[in-house]
């Protein structure tokens, strides 16, 4: 299935892009992040990131569906 990935902050810098689409053969945000971490040398552990699916904060265990967008969010540092 096709998943649209959004990158923010340090993850966007390391990936060299703010978004991309990937075809995956599983439905796990954790497995997807593990692959991205390997591809782009992301420093964060999955458990230290929040997950937004279709622009809503979601549990780490949420199952992805075809066409979903997902963002892995580093610790927020506004203000």
């Amino acid at each position, binding site marked *: 299935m096709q998943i649209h990935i959004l990158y*923010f902050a340090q993850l966007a810098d390391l990936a060299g892009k703010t978004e991309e689409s990937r075809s995956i053969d599983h439905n796990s945000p954790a497995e997807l992040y593990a692959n991205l971490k390997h591809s782009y040398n992301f420093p964060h552990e999955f458990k230290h990131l929040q*997950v*937004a699916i279709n*622009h809503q*904060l*979601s549990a780490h265990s949420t199952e992805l569906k075809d066409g979903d967008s997902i963002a892995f969010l*580093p610790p*927020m*540092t*506004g203000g």
Partner: protein
Amino acid sequence: MNFHLTDQAIEPTSLRRKLLSLSAGAYCSYEGWVRNHNEGKVVKELHYSGYPQLAPSIANTILKEAKEKFHIEDAAVVHRTGALTTGDIAVWVGVTAHHRGDTFLACRYIIDNVKHRLPIWKKEIYTDDTQAWIESNHCGCADPKNLEHPHQTHP
């Protein structure tokens, strides 16, 4: 909606005007400024990156919580994105209430939670042209009582 992300300069006077109310006896505001130093390094600029499709719902949740916890009339938040230089206003919070006490408490509640929960990230650019994404707002400034979800992972 009482929340805005903007890449334009924050103008507190006009934002304050929008909160004016004849039934409010108190108004409290907070401005977060870009300071010229952090942890021993001289800061030249801050670059704020936000998640505009998610930030409004989080901000409105924080504002709703503040209205439930404190006796306030109204509250608003504006946060900058993009490149800011020292002295610029990065974030503004305004609160009105019948009495002053709740404006102070609600204003602090809102800014503490904005800093920890709003999907915005800042990168510091230093005068030696190095740069670094800030990884934590845990500077000890936040009132721990205000942070119900400081490490929220499962909403």
